[in-house]
Every structure is written in structure tokens, then in C-alpha cells.
């Protein structure tokens, strides 16, 4: 087996080296022309450099207006059609990031208790030596490379961090999806085999359950639903909160939380029983219609009305309108869907509706994402003997259930891992449970790339307890995040305006690929994650104990094909190789910031003869074929969720358009828009509790409490309260928002959706009282 891998490695490594050699001459010229590659300071003059944004996940294109070596402004790139050539508040405010007075400027090693904010400045070289030494210690002490966990956040440099994880050989990588969207990916994929997009630029009837596209911006959806909305398009929003999206909707249903599935099942009931479905499409493209039909007979609109508090007539209207406009009708898949413990079942119900009406892979419907073809070198990492399998897999025994005490416990959900664990992603909550338990092996060290789990993950007290168990924590970030604040070693990365990043294909109906080039020299001589990985790997190679459990020959190939050919080469070589399939691809990237095959929407890829959906049956599965193998429901079954008792409120999450998660609140241009968060509480409930607008109130759950100003409003259901993410911070290195407002992580209980492993963050009940 090793031999065949070896051959494969040799072939792919050689191809990469040859392509780079061929492209090298032009690259040097282009780099010089774009104003980089020389180390001169005191740069004079103006220039406009194409690159892409890192203030959120969307990576919108811009031209940086650079005056005398300093970013003056970021202007939207007119060629960046995926974002419809816009730049949002955060995208504009990004121009402050290199100059933020509190950005990390030099590596810092802890010089006091954890969290004491006492640090000693060290060089990058020292930092790399410390990391390599600690990695060697962990390997020697625990004889298991998986004793070091690698946590990372999404981004163009995440791959560089994964290179470090794979070089070390730990299988415990924990990425962000299980605190975000893994349940909607799983739910939609269980029907279509993929997680598709909704074509809001062409749809005539849009049902948006919970997604807040007016404030949680996703390109191009957030633009299309207002800017390119077809005449007559109807938008129906289900949300317990009157978001800006609800404000733009034709109908807002303030749905009772945790009952959205009842609404969807009743829509299916009406579409089937009134024979509104697309009979040809169902017959030719789908699997399990008869089972679905029998299953939904119990879910009448009248039944659903009692569950979700949306009138039966409205549900019928939605079902009929949806079918009337099909195939230009969509149920919006959504993104951060870490809501409830049965979220995958709910997403399945959503996904089934467009399938019944044939709203698939056509303009205005649900459309599978397309990508831009890029080349990526196959990197073969050494095999190591001292590696245990992931900590959150099923073979390691039962976990605490992490399910609330209600009917959903009867769903046969797994209690010994998750049904479909992402191999690289893991399940954040399950992983933390396993670390805390310390069995079957200890995880004692953390390498963290920009994942601020202290504020991002529910139940902060548990997260801090996990961190206390660590021998060593290393954080790589651009700012002193809450997680960095509790680390032992903090390594600054250059901001996205100061570095080169590899090319990524942004998949969707309008696929486009983008990259980053440095718009300015690093203001504080910081490094990119690519350079940090290179520096750490070099130090690792000086420590023989790190390599004594692998094959010597394999190690030599690794050094030659990866360390020398990739890590020691300029990152520009990697980028050139990625776009070597395009004529003048690299030059186009430098000039335009983007590369693509077409600027038109891509439809109908799955309509080609012989197309097989990536499901077990090869068809669209109304009834899932493989789920019963794991004891899971083949069809979405509604099981009643518990609801808050008198005096309790359900705490629901969300954000506004000017902040991303926990990353942007300390940017002064965004901070001045919102300086702290406020607790939204329904005016009638506030009156009962004697709470007036602006009063300070205590919000208390079973795991924590926070004090925050009340915002008495009509914009939320009486049984819910809400405050925005990213405030009430514990890091003193983010002084604008340190202890300003309230933290979500501090009060959220840690429930889990056990099919996808997603966190379930809308299951926490709180009490509210005057402070």
C-alpha cells in the first residue's frame, strides 16, 4: 500500500515542480510590476491593488487604494460579480485592520498566570522553536500525535495551518462547521447529495426560515433579494424576531421557536394531497414518494397551526403559491443552522419541498453549486506509528446525551459520537466532552488558528475548564481574541492586506475564484500562516525525536516534495500552479483579482443524461435510503420540543450586518456603529417584569449569567429574548468591547444535533430580571 502511494507522490510532486519552473520567469516580472518583491520602505505614489476581503467568509473582491505605502481606502472590484461588485461596512472597515492600535505586532509568550494579560515579547524564530519543542514533548510524553488538537477557522490560509497539522500527524483537527452550518449541509445533502444554493435573483416565491440575509450577508443572496429581485417575487420569512430581513418580507410569520418543521411538513402535506407536485419530476428523479405521502398524512395544516402558531390558511397559501410558481420557488437552505437538536430533520423537510415541485437546477430554483477548476498539488505527508484515531469517534464509547429532556430523545439519535462525523471537521461539542473526560487518551496541547472558541462555543465555563487541562496552548491570530488571551504563546499573523494567500474557488451559481496579494508591506514585520507553518516545520526538522516513528525514505520524499518544493518556495509559485490551467491565469489574478470560466449563472449540470446524485440510490431521496442503517428516521419526524415555562424565555441568536462573529467588534469604524449589545425583550413581557428601555438586566441560564441593557421592543416574540453575538468580551486586548454588553458563550447551554454534530444553540432557556 505504501508503495503505490509513493508512486503517486512522485508523479504529482514532479508535475508541480515542472509547472512552477515554467511559470517562474513571468512571475518575477509581474511581482516587480505590482510593486512588491522589493523590501524598500518609504514607498511613494498611488496604486490600486486587486485582492479579496477577509472580514467575513464571502471574500469579496476589492481594489486597495494605496497612497505612499498606506491603505487609503478599499473600493469594490467591479469584476467581482459574485458579490455584485459591492463592499459592505466590514469590507470598508477592513482598511483599518493593519493600523488597529491593538493588533498583534510581535509574538508573545505568557509571563504570568493564564489570562493575567502578562506577556513577554519574543522573536518569530523563538516562537517557532517553542512550538516545535512543545510538539516534540507531546509526542514523546504521550506517544500519540493526536494528543495535540488543531483548531482552525475558515479562510484562505486555513490550508497552511492544515499543512502543519498534517506534518505533525495529529488526526484531531477541529474546524468551524459544527459551530455553524454542518446540520444544513447534512440535511440538504441527505436529499440531493449536495448542499445547494437558492437562486434568489430569479425565484418568484421564496420561503426563508430563519435565515437573515439582510443582516448576515451572504453573496450574492443578500444583494439579489433586493437589488435584482424579479418583479412580483414574494418573500415569506419565518423568524421569532423581526429582523431586517423580516422587515423586507411580503409576509413575516413570527414562528414559535423549534416548531418550524411542523410548517414545512404541513406544506408537504398540502402539496401532495392537493396534487400540486410535479408528477414527472417526482417519478423520474426522486426516490421514496409513496413512503413520504403516507408519512405526512398526520401533518395537516390544522395540526401544524397548533404547533407553530402560523394559521393553517397561511400554510395552505404558501404551499399553493410555492407550487404555482415552481420551478421558480425555493425554500432557502440557510447557513448558520446551529439551532435545535433536530435541525437535520428540519432541513430535510425544507429540502423535500422543492424536490416535490421540480425546483431543481433551473433558474429561480434550488441549484447545485459549481466551482472554478483549480490545480492543487497532492501533498503526501509521512505515516506515523504514534497516532490514535480521532477523539470524537464512536468507538470511544457513550457521551453524555447533550439532548434536552423532551420527545426528541426518543428519535434513536446516536449517543456515542455523531452519525455523520466530518473527518476533518469533527464535532466541536463532542470533542470538548471527550477532552474533558480524558479517555481513551489525553489531549494536552492545542494549536489554534483564529478559531475564537472561548466566545464562539456554547458554555464558556466548560471551554475554559478544557483549556486549564492543557500543557500548552498556541494561538495564531491578528488580534488578542478571547482564546488568545488564555493562551501560552500568541503568534501574530499578517492581516489580509499584508499577505499573499492561495487561490480559492468560491462555489455557487456564479462561481468565481480569488486570491490575495499583499497590498502593503507588513506594518509590523508579521508573517502569513504559510510562512509560520514553514518556520515551525523547519524547527521541527531539527528535532530527531519528532521523526523516529516514520519511514526514513518517506521522510526524505516529504522533505523534497513538500518542505523544499512548497514551503521553501515563494507562495506565488503555489498560486501560479493553481491557475496554470488558465491562459495567463496568474497575470489575470494580479490585475483583476479574480479568475473564472464564465460570468453567467451555471444551471443544468445535473440534467445531463446519466447523472447520478450523490445519494445511495443515485436519485433525489425524499425518503432517505441510508439513514435507517444507523437507526435514524428515513423521513423527517416531528417530535415536540420543550418550551420555556412561565418566567422563562428562549434565548435566540443572531447578528447585525456590521459585525462578523467575534472578529470585528474591536475595529473602531465598526465599534462606533454599535458599542455594545442590548437584550431584545417584547414590550408586554418587559412591562410584566417592570423592565424599562435601557434598564440593566440580568440574563441567567443554567450555565451562566450576564448583565446587559434591555431594549424593550415590538420586534420579538413574547417567549424569546435575543442579544447580538460578539460583545461582553473577556479579552483585555480588545479594549473597545472588553466587558461591554453581554456574551452569548457565557450563557448558552451545550446541546448537540447528533446526526451532523452541529451545536444546538437555540435550546437554552433563561430568566430575565432587573439588575
Amino acid at each position, binding site marked *: 500500500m505504501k508503495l503505490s502511494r509513493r508512486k503517486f507522490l512522485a508523479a504529482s510532486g514532479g508535475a508541480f515542480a515542472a509547472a512552477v519552473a515554467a511559470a517562474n520567469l513571468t512571475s518575477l516580472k509581474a511581482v516587480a510590476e505590482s510593486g512588491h518583491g522589493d523590501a524598500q520602505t518609504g514607498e511613494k505614489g498611488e496604486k490600486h491593488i486587486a485582492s479579496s476581503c477577509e472580514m467575513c467568509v464571502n471574500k469579496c473582491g476589492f481594489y486597495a487604494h494605496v497612497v505612499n505605502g498606506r491603505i487609503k481606502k478599499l473600493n469594490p472590484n467591479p469584476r467581482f460579480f459574485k458579490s455584485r461588485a459591492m463592499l*459592505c461596512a466590514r469590507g*470598508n472597515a477592513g482598511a483599518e485592520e493593519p493600523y488597529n492600535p491593538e493588533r498583534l505586532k510581535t509574538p508573545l509568550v505568557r509571563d504570568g498566570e493564564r489570562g493575567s494579560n502578562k506577556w513577554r515579547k519574543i522573536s518569530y524564530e523563538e516562537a517557532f522553536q517553542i512550538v516545535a519543542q512543545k510538539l516534540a514533548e507531546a509526542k514523546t510524553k504521550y506517544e500519540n500525535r493526536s494528543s495535540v488538537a488543531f483548531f482552525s477557522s475558515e479562510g484562505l490560509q486555513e490550508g497552511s495551518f492544515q499543512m502543519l497539522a498534517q506534518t505533525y500527524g495529529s488526526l484531531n483537527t477541529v474546524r468551524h462547521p459544527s459551530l455553524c452550518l454542518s446540520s444544513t449541509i447534512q440535511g440538504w445533502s441527505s436529499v440531493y447529495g449536495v448542499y445547494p444554493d437558492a437562486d434568489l435573483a430569479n425565484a418568484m416565491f421564496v420561503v426563508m426560515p430563519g435565515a437573515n440575509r439582510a443582516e448576515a450577508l451572504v453573496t450574492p443572496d*443578500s*444583494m439579489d433579494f433586493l437589488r435584482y429581485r424579479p418583479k412580483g417575487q414574494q418573500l415569506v420569512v419565518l423568524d421569532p424576531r423581526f429582523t431586517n430581513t423580516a*422587515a423586507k418580507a411580503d409576509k413575516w410569520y413570527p414562528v414559535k421557536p423549534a416548531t418550524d418543521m411542523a410548517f414545512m411538513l404541513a406544506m408537504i402535506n398540502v402539496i401532495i394531497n392537493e396534487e400540486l407536485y410535479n408528477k414527472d419530476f417526482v417519478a423520474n428523479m426522486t426516490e421514496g414518494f409513496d413512503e413520504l405521502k403516507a408519512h405526512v398524512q398526520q401533518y395537516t395544516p390544522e395540526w401544524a397551526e397548533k404547533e407553530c402558531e402560523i394559521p393553517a390558511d397561511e400554510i395552505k397559501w404558501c404551499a399553493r403559491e410555492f407550487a404555482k410558481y415552481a420551478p421558480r420557488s425555493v425554500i432557502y437552505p440557510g447557513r448558520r443552522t446551529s439551532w435545535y437538536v433536530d435541525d437535520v430533520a428540519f432541513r430535510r423537510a425544507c429540502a423535500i419541498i422543492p424536490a416535490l415541485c421540480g425546483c431543481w437546477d433551473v433558474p429561480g430554483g434550488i441549484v447545485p453549486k459549481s466551482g472554478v477548476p483549480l490545480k492543487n498539488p497532492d501533498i503526501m505527508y509521512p505515516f506515523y506509528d504514534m497516532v490514535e484515531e480521532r477523539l470524537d469517534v464512536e468507538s470511544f464509547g457513550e457521551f453524555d446525551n447533550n439532548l434536552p429532556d423532551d420527545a426528541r430523545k426518543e428519535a434513536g439519535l446516536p449517543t456515542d459520537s455523531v452519525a455523520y462525523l466530518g473527518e476533518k471537521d469533527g464535532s466541536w461539542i463532542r470533542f470538548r466532552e471527550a477532552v474533558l473526560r480524558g479517555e481513551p487518551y489525553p489531549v494536552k496541547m492545542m494549536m489554534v488558528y483564529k478559531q475564537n472558541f472561548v466566545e464562539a462555543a456554547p458554555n464558556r465555563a466548560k471551554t475554559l475548564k478544557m483549556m486549564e487541562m492543557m500543557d500548552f496552548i498556541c494561538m495564531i491570530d491578528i488580534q488578542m481574541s478571547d482564546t488568545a488571551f488564555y493562551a501560552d504563546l500568541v503568534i501574530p499573523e499578517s492581516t489580509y492586506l499584508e499577505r499573499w494567500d492561495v487561490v480559492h474557488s468560491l462555489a455557487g451559481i456564479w462561481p468565481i475564484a480569488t486570491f490575495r496579494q499583499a497590498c502593503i508591506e507588513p506594518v509590523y514585520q508579521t508573517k502569513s500562516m504559510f510562512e509560520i507553518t514553514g518556520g515551525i516545520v523547519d524547527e521541527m526538522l531539527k528535532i530527531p525525536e519528532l521523526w523516529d516513528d516514520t519511514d526514513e525514505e518517506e521522510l526524505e520524499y516529504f522533505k523534497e516534495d513538500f518542505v523544499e518544493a512548497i514551503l521553501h518556495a515563494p507562495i506565488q509559485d503555489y498560486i501560479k500552479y493553481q491557475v496554470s490551467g488558465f491562459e495567463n491565469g496568474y497575470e489575470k489574478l494580479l490585475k483583476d483579482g479574480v479568475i473564472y470560466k464564465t460570468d453567467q449563472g451555471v444551471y443544468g449540470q445535473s440534467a445531463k443524461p446519466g447523472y447520478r446524485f450523490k445519494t445511495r440510490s443515485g436519485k433525489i431521496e425524499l425518503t432517505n435510503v441510508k439513514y435507517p442503517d444507523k437507526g435514524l428516521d428515513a423521513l423527517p419526524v416531528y417530535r415536540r420540543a420543550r418550551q420555556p415555562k412561565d418566567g422563562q424565555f428562549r434565548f435566540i441568536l443572531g447578528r447585525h450586518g456590521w459585525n462578523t462573529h467575534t472578529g470585528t467588534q474591536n475595529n473602531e*469604524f465598526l465599534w462606533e456603529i454599535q458599542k455594545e449589545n442590548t437584550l431584545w425583550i417584547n414590550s408586554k413581557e418587559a412591562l410584566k417584569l417592570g423592565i424599562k428601555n435601557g434598564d440593566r438586566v440580568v440574563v441567567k441560564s443554567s450555565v451562566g449569567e450576564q448583565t446587559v441593557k434591555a431594549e424593550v*421592543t415590538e420586534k420579538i416574540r*413574547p417567549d424569546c429574548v435575543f442579544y447580538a453575538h460578539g460583545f461582553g468580551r473577556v479579552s483585555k486586548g480588545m479594549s473597545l468591547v472588553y466587558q461591554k454588553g453581554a456574551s452569548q458563550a457565557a450563557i448558552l447551554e451545550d446541546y448537540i444535533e447528533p446526526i451532523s454534530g452541529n451545536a444546538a444553540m437555540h435550546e437554552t432557556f433563561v430568566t430575565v430580571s432587573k439588575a
Partner: protein
Amino acid sequence: MATKKFGIVLDAKKCLNCKACTVACKFENTIHPGEDDYRIWVTELELKGTYPNISQEYQPSQCQHCENTPCASVCPTKATYKSPEGVVLIDYDKCILCKACMTACPYDARYENVHLHAIDKCTFCYQRQPEGREPACVETCPTRVRVFGDLNDPESEASKLLARNHTYQLKPERNTRPRLHYIK
């Protein structure tokens, strides 16, 4: 048609209140954060109704570049003047900071720029005109709330929008004849 007449047509119903325009303006026109200075703004209009029957609208705005210009009329040093395209501008050297214009402006569009020692306000990003670029607020908007153009050119996108929609102006009773037109 000899001269250009710059104006903006706004469709406030498209406004997400995302603040892209206000942040873009600050960088383009070097307005420092934390000083409560701004050239453009988005007003959250009062919420109408009670739960669950409610509605919320936003009103993005800025200097109206009035044809009848109260700020210019009251200026003792003629620091406020109009460009050939009708854009209301300020000669910072002539401004003596008497603030009469701030009082005269019905739209509260002016502020004291302590760095320039002068009164300041929206200029439709006049510095971008030589390159033919749109104002920063127009260019950056995710949903294209504002359309900027020559209202004397019937073929401009702004003129077409103005012709095809019923529009209104802010505080018409002040007879300032603003160059900002809001689509009803």
C-alpha cells in the same frame, strides 16, 4: 444641454441599514472614527405598529445639494459655493467657522471638521469627478439604494429612474429644491 446637473435618486426600500455607505464615506473623505463626525447617515425611522403587525423603514441621507441653498445664502465669506454641476462645496480657506450655515441647513448635514478648521459636509465625493467615478456611498452599496448621475441627461440611469417613479424630496416646505430624490 450645456451643463451637467448632478443628483442622486434613492430607493430607500432597498436599504438594509448595513452601514456600508457610512463607513465607505469615512475612508474616502478621511473622517476619523470616534469623533461623532459624519457626512452621510442612515436614519432608522420609528417602528410602526405593535407586535406582530409592525413595519420598519430606513432613510439614508446626506447633504441635499439644494438648488436654493440656504447655507450659501447665509455664508458671510462665500466659503460655500456651487460647482458648475450644482454640487454644493466649501472653500475651506474661506471658512471662518461662524457656523451660520449649520444653523441654516434644514437637513443638519454639516459638521465642524476640526482637522481642517472648517465646516464640512457631503460633496458627492467631488474629488472622484476627474476620474468619472461615482461617490463612495453609491459605489459600495450592496443593494444599490443610491443611483448617482446627471439629471440633465435624460439617458442617465438617475434621470430614467426619476422619470419612471414617483419620488419625493425631504422637507419640501423649506423650498430648498434638493437634488436628492427618494422613490416612493
